Structures are given as C-alpha cells and as structure tokens.
C-alpha cells in the first residue's frame, strides 16, 4: 500500500485518462431527483451533495438479471453456450462509499462458498473500485456499528480522502489500483503527510455487534419479530438496494427453439420466495420473513461465512416505504 497526494486538477486529468483508456466508468449522478450510479464520461457529471446513492454498487458484480447460459434445440439435439467471462467489460466504479465497497466481501463469501461462482468472479476481476472516504453521514448511517468506518478501505482498490484544497489523499491499495494510477502517473504527488482521520465524519457506534449476535442466537422465538414487522408490506425494496443481499431466482427466457437461462435478483421478504410446489410455505408470515432477513445477516452469515451481512449503509431504512428502520430495530434487539 502506498499513499500519495493528488491535486484537484490532477483528479480531473486522471479521471479523463481512465475514461480514455476505454474502461467504463460508473459514478453517482444526480438525475430524476435521485443520486445513483450511472455510466459517465466527464467528471462534471458526478454528483456532489448527497449522503448516499439509492442503490448500491452490487449490480456491477451481481447484475439485476444476467444470462447464465443460452441454449438452442435443433432436431432434438441441444447445444449450450456457456457464459463468457471475456464478455464482461473492464469497469471502474468511481466515488464509491466505503460501506459499499465493503459489501463485496459478504457478496463474494456467499457466491464463492464451497463452489465458485464463475459469473460473479468474472465481474469481480473486471471491476476496480475507487472509493471516497466519507466526510458526512446521516441518521441512517451506522457503518461503525458493523466493523466498518467512514475511511474503511476494505473492498477498495484506491481510496481518496478529499482535502479542503480540492485535492485528495490517495491510498493505493491493490494491484488493480496501481493499474489505474499507471494510466496517468505524473499527477500523483508525494504524500503531504496529512492525516486522513482529520477529514472523516465522526460516527459513533450505535450497537455492539457481538452483543447483538448473542441476543439473536436466542431470539428465534421472540415476539420481537412480529412486533417489528407488523407494518412491513413484504416488498423487496430493502433487499434490492442492499449491497450484500444476494438471494436470487433462476428463470427461463424461451423463444421457440432458442432460449437463455437467467439469474435475477430475488428477496427473502417475498411471500412466494420459499413456497413449495405442494402449497406448503415454511415462511408463511411476514414476521418469519423479517426474522430471516435479520438473522441471516447478523447471525447465520457471521457463523457460516465469518462475515456480517450488513455494512451499515442504511439504504434499506431509506428505501422502506413504511420506515422499517434497521438501525432502530437492531438497537432495540440489542437492548432487550
């Protein structure tokens, strides 16, 4: 790891060099009243004043819908065409929050548990993350409660910490990061010795993860699930904006003798998610589905995959139409 300084004009030159190199650059853009990741060509398109993008960067390594393989039937004979990792373009994610970058670890833990997921890994290899440490947070943010921080570098290839002069402290964290730097090496100056921590937002931890985990281990039959989930509408908004939710569905897109098998996002909050063909549904009530969501993230994943399924980005709380606030709910479980 190496620390450098980059000036305001240097950032722009470097950004342009990345675009010119042919890599796709996605960055937060303010349009339609929302800030979200979009393909950008110019640094001026990138949004400034916002706390959090509506959606996470999950889709870059786990697309909303993706072809697993395609098939063709000719005279009863079937030929398969495998997913081609080479079809995935080189992508740079610009101005990613640390909580978002941190989501790659739990995502990969799920996708590569035991059997490797070729598709996810193909995206991962082709994706570079340039994160920006956080100078601001809002009441939904709680990264510091889930092993994260506003300057967390996990999952990032490069992290910038913006300085008052418009320049930034640059932490070059991985070989992929070095490749990006190499596109315009002369704009990276020697580290000026500025302390990164000085420029990070102060965010107090709101609960203790071990404590929550211990409580959850005994909470399966608690009444808390029903109490908390009464107003839950059972939509998938929280799961789809989440940087770590990975549940998916496999579907068929058939056109006559040709077709493709598609993997698409799904959510454990949907009533049909676990429905058996027989009509039996192991998670019949919304309270069971809400419990699954929380236990999976804060109990099952830590135990089975040694990683928390939450990065504290707060997107689910912001997206929920009925204010199912995850921070509030977890804190109340911790206090029980």
């Amino acid at each position, binding site marked *: 790891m190496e620390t450098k300084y980059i000036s305001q004009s240097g950032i722009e030159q470097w950004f342009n060099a990345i675009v010119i190199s042919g890599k796709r650059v996605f960055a937060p853009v303010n349009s*339609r*009243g*929302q800030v*979200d990741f979009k393909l950008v060509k110019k640094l001026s398109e990138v949004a400034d004043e916002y706390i959090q993008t*509506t*959606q996470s960067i999950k889709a870059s390594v786990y697309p*909303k*819908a993706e072809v697993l393989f395609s098939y063709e039937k000719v005279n009863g004979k079937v030929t398969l065409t495998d997913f081609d990792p080479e079809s995935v373009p080189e992508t740079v994610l610009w101005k990613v929050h640390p909580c978002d970058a941190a989501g790659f670890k739990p995502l990969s833990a799920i996708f590569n548990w035991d059997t490797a997921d070729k598709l996810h890994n193909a995206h991962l290899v082709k994706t570079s993350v340039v994160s920006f440490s956080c100078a601001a947070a809002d*009441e*939904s943010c709680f990264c510091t409660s889930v092993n994260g921080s506003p300057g967390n570098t996990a999952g990032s290839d490069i992290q910038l910490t913006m300085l008052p002069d418009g320049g930034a402290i640059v932490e070059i964290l991985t070989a992929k990061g070095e490749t990006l730097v190499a596109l315009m090496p002369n704009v990276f100056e020697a580290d000026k010795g500025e302390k990164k921590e000085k420029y990070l937002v102060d965010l107090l931890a709101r609960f203790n993860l071990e404590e929550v985990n211990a409580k959850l281990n005994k909470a399966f039959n608690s009444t808390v699930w029903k109490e908390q989930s*009464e*107003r839950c*509408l*059972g*939509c*998938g*908004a929280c*799961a*789809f*904006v989440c940087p770590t939710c990975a549940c998916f*569905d496999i*579907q068929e*897109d058939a056109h006559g003798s040709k077709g493709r098998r*598609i993997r*698409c*996002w799904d*959510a454990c909050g*949907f009533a*049909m998610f676990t429905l058996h063909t027989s009509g039996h549904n192991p998670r019949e*009530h*919304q309270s069971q589905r809400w419990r699954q969501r929380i236990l999976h993230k804060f109990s099952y994943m830590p135990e089975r995959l040694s990683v928390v399924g939450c990065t504290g980005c707060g997107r689910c*709380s912001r*997206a929920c*139409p*009925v*204010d199912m*606030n995850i921070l*509030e709910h977890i804190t109340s479980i911790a206090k029980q």
Partner: protein
Amino acid sequence: MKKLRDRAAELLSQGVVSLVIGYEEGTKRPRPLFCRNSESAEKLIFDSRCFHNLAVYITKKELVGKERFAVTAPISTLRSIMQLYVENQLSEEKLLVLTVDLSGELREFTTFDEIAAYVAQFELKRGEREQGILSKIEAMDRAERWKFWMEEMSHCFKCYACRSACPLCYCSKCVVEVNRPQWINPWPAPLANMEWHINRAMHMVGRCTACGACGDACPVGIPIDLITRKMMEDMAPEFGYVPGQPAKQGNALSSWKLDDREQFIR
C-alpha cells in the same frame, strides 16, 4: 390529536375494537402504528404528513384478525376504503373509520354511506408534483413519451413495492407470479418492467383512487402513480365515473355499456 388518542384508547379499553391502525412518529416521517391496547394509543398522531395509505392493511387477514378494528384515514385512504367496499372486500360490521376533518374535529364513520357522503365534498385535484410531471408528459410526442418511460423503466428492479403499497392490490396470487403461461417476464429488464407497469395500469383502470401510495413507495423514484392516475382521469369521462368517487355502477372493466364510444375500431 388528543381527541383521536382518547377516542382510540376508549375504543380499545371498552373492547369496541381490538385494533386501531393509525400513525405514529417515525424516524423520518409518520409511519403506520398498530395499537392493540390503550397505552399504545398514546403514540397516535394525525396530521398533514400522515399520507401513507393505511387501507393497504385492512384486507390483510393475518393482521386484522376476526374482530372489529378501527383505522384512521385521511381523504385518500377514505377513497381507497370506499373502493374496497365497492369490490366487496370490507364489511361495515368489522370496520370503524376515524378521521380528523378540516376544522380539527374528530369524525367517526360506521357506515360506508357516511364515508361516501363525506368524501363527496372533496374534489380530486392534481397536486403540484403531479401537475408538473404530467404536463411535461402531455406535451411530449409519442416517441418522446416512449423514451421517457423506457428510461424510467430501466431503473425498476421489480421489488414490487408499488404492488405492496397499493390498497387495491390485494390479490393473493398476482399475475406476475403466474408462470403457466409466464405472462410477465419475472426478471427486471426494461421491457419486462414496462409490461409489468402496463399490466398494473390495466388492472387499476376504473379502480385507482390516485392516493399516490405506489409512487411514494417506489425506491427508485419512478412516478408510477402518475400512470394509474392519468388513466383514472382519462377513463372517467369515457365510462361515466367521477375521479375519486367509488365506482358504484361496478368497475370499469367488469362492466360495459351499449353506447360505449370509440373512434378507432374500423
């Protein structure tokens, strides 16, 4: 507000109802509250920020149970309740409706006729936001509209918050979950999303009461409520309805008239 809390507490403690569905202060704005005892009624609030449509809960059997319950309802919710009643989803015996009128008085409705009479005083008008976006869309030519909606639809990830938030989407099995045949492709993709929203609009023709819950629920900010709203506005004169008033003569697409007019069938 005090009157509402007192009355709710009274209803619960006297056993008139077993549940009061209302609003409480949330982390960002008021959110639904389910009071099952008089103490929790203390948390009830009711003001202009309370626009989440609570009618969405009153058809959920696992939630409201078998006993009589009450719901606090601003005008938009009252309209949904009327429509649900027209569609035979509610019974007067089970439901007590509370609202606070413009003069700040607590009103209590035990019959749907009372609600209908009350709701009839209010004209359904476009708000500033609706007018803003709809006038923009109305000024577009067809190709521009297609472009506009395809861009919007590309953001949809099929979380179905629109469906979940809508009081009139009460089907136990939605058409998107039917896979024989697979009417609507279940994955999120621009056209599959468009098909879903067209389908939703069609199922809402003559039923939507323009409460805006679907648009409000959409996490990616697609103004989907304006699709059903515009349909409501445009179809009402075609089929002889008053926007925002219950379709007493039956739903638009489950009824017909000999003299329905059109200019496009040749």
